[in-house]
């Protein structure tokens, strides 16, 4: 959409189909996931509403909603954006373009299998790793296929110098297979005994939700922000220092302060949380310096998404640090405060940055403008408002709950308010899905038309082409 960005036509041509496959399914899963979370939250308004069927029980709908958003939307959308950015940075075509198309279908089918397992009650029981063997094997295979294509594209780059986006995206590419196999081996295939399971699950979910999503999200933001702002990323060494300290420290967070494990686990997490201030302030400085003097208005477009998303990351990071502090952490860890931080990370920071990137890159990749351009601005506002209504009551309610001696009856009102936030987010995601769906339809229609044209009057069309 940004007319000044030059896109290699070969890049667009090869990325088109994989991206449509990845983003189409992702948008659908985002809608499904938010709808499930909204349905689950109806339990706080009418406690008995879904009590007559096993598959509609709160625990299953919540897990399914969370996983639909994380595995169905976040990861495939991230992989699509990653492929696009890597191909553009390489100034080359996407290598093996059919492999990601296949992989996208395997991935989304894997998510479907995993969701079915959750609804039938066959989840693993580990938070954020609920998919059983069947689903997770498919996800892993699909990821590796996309990884092959991404690495080959990276290897074929003409410009040998690495960009900041490269650091983040390459690290992310490498991160997921390691944490996903580790978690599945130690928790599902050959489970370890006792509480070690919980420690590994915390390590996995922190590395996926906090580290992996941040690496992809910030990589994307640091790729697009300079383009939108019209000036290079300010102080690249600082960005690099932030990157290294982030991957060194953030991986150690995530053990709750009151966990029933020997004291050195939470103490190590606390130390890491304290040190996390360094990368977060570094990223903040890079972000502010790059964006502050930009002479472009964002006007509800992708630039707004990037700015809003990066700000949400800073807040999410700053919300995570106190969770690692012994006093406050013990107070807040079991309340909705921790949930608010997770939702801010996934739905606030990550989804916004990725949606912004998708809005920016798809017209270039497909060669068709967005059918509903007004939706872009509306979705931005809906997400902003929805997040505020979702996260702020949860965070406040979390603190209030502990102060109030866990009076669950009085805490429910915060959950009830946050349902409204979920409804707004669902509305926003419907706009996103509608845009992608109609864009895909238009593209298919165009494809069919040109195909028909070739059949009807082959000569003429070949003349047009040449």
């Amino acid at each position, binding site marked *: 959409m*940004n007319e*000044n*960005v*030059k896109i290699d036509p070969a890049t667009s041509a090869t990325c088109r189909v994989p991206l449509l496959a990845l983003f189409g399914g992702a948008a659908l899963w985002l809608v499904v996931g938010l709808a499930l979370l909204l349905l689950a939250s109806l339990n706080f308004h009418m406690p008995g509403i879904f009590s007559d069927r096993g598959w509609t029980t709160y625990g299953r709908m919540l897990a399914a909603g969370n996983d639909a958003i994380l595995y169905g939307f976040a990861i495939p959308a991230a992989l699509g954006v990653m492929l696009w950015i890597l191909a*553009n*940075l390489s*100034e080359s075509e996407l290598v093996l373009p059919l492999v990601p198309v296949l992989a996208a279908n395997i991935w989304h089918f894997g998510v479907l299998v995993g969701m079915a397992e959750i609804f039938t009650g066959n989840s693993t029981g580990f938070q954020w790793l609920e998919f059983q063997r069947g689903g997770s094997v498919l996800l892993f295979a699909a990821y590796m296929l996309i990884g092959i294509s991404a690495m080959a594209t990276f290897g074929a780059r003409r*410009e040998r*110098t690495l*960009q900041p986006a490269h650091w983040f995206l390459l690290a992310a590419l490498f991160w997921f297979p390691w944490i996903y196999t580790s978690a599945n081996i130690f928790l599902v295939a050959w489970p370890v005994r006792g509480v070690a399971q919980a420690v590994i699950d915390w390590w996995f979910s922190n590395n996926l939700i906090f580290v992996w999503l941040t690496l992809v999200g910030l990589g994307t933001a640091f790729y697009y922000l*300079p*383009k939108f702002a*019209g000036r*290079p*990323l*300010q*102080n*690249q*060494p*600082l960005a690099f*220092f932030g990157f290294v*300290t982030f991957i060194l420290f953030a991986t150690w967070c995530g053990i709750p*302060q*009151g966990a*029933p*494990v*020997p*004291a*050195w686990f*939470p*103490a*190590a997490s*606390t*130390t*890491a949380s*304290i*040190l996390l*201030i*360094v990368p977060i*302030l*570094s990223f903040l*400085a890079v972000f502010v310096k790059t964006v502050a003097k930009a*002479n472009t208005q964002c006007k509800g477009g992708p630039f707004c998404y990037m700015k809003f998303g990066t700000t949400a990351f800073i807040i999410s990071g700053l919300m995570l640090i106190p969770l690692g502090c*012994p006093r406050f952490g013990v107070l807040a860890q079991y309340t909705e405060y921790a949930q608010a931080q997770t939702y801010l990370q996934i739905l606030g920071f990550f989804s916004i940055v990725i949606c912004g990137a998708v809005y920016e890159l798809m017209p270039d990749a497909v060669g068709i403008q967005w059918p509903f351009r007004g939706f872009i601005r509306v979705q931005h506002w809906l997400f902003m408002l929805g997040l505020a209504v979702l996260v702020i009551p949860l965070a406040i309610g979390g603190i209030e709950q502990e102060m109030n001696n866990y009076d669950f009856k009085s805490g429910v009102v915060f959950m009830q308010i946050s349902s409204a936030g979920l409804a707004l987010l669902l509305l926003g995601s419907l706009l996103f899905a509608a845009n992608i769906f109609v864009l895909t339809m238009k593209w298919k229609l165009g494809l069919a038309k040109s195909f028909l044209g070739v059949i009807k009057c082959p000569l003429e069309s070949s003349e047009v082409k040449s």
Partner: protein
Amino acid sequence: MSNDLKDHTPAPSGSPGSGPALPVWVFSLTLVLLFLGGVYFDESSGWFNAQVYKPYTDANQLEAYQPVSGAAAIRAQGKLRYDMICAACHGPNGEGKPGQAPPLAGSEWVNDSAHTRLIEIPQLGLNGQVTVEGQSWSLSMAPMGAGLSDSDLAAVLTYVRSSWGNKGDDVSSDDVKTVRGGIAGHPAIPGETGLKAIKE
């Protein structure tokens, strides 16, 4: 305004000092936080000890808070021996075993204000008829406690006399020592008559 792809490549590496440098505050902040984090970890981690959980911060503190002082410790020591030796017949809760061993919970012999008889029974054994809580028992108890040390036997008896609703005084190891000195070489106590013959 040029938004060309290449406009944010870093400065060519051949020109040292031309690119922006890392701000000093980042270094200082990192060092300060590393120090603070290290101090915190040292103070509260228990250095990887598998036994140290919050709220304890090191193994020595954990040891200090083990409940092993005063009468609680004696009772605990007594329970340990009782569970090993006596519980097989008299039951883990002193309820006894029909036809074999009378209950200790509520027994008048156990709750007797004097405890010489109670100290002698496990050391000498008890053969013959005894009435406990209104029921007559024909017993042949071996000297099960003869091998226990003074303090262990005292602990067992203290535990028995203060558990399951029993309300007897504590038995000290001095008491056991005194009684033990007086009965060396005696045969098993011949039933209730023998018990009643024991002078307080």
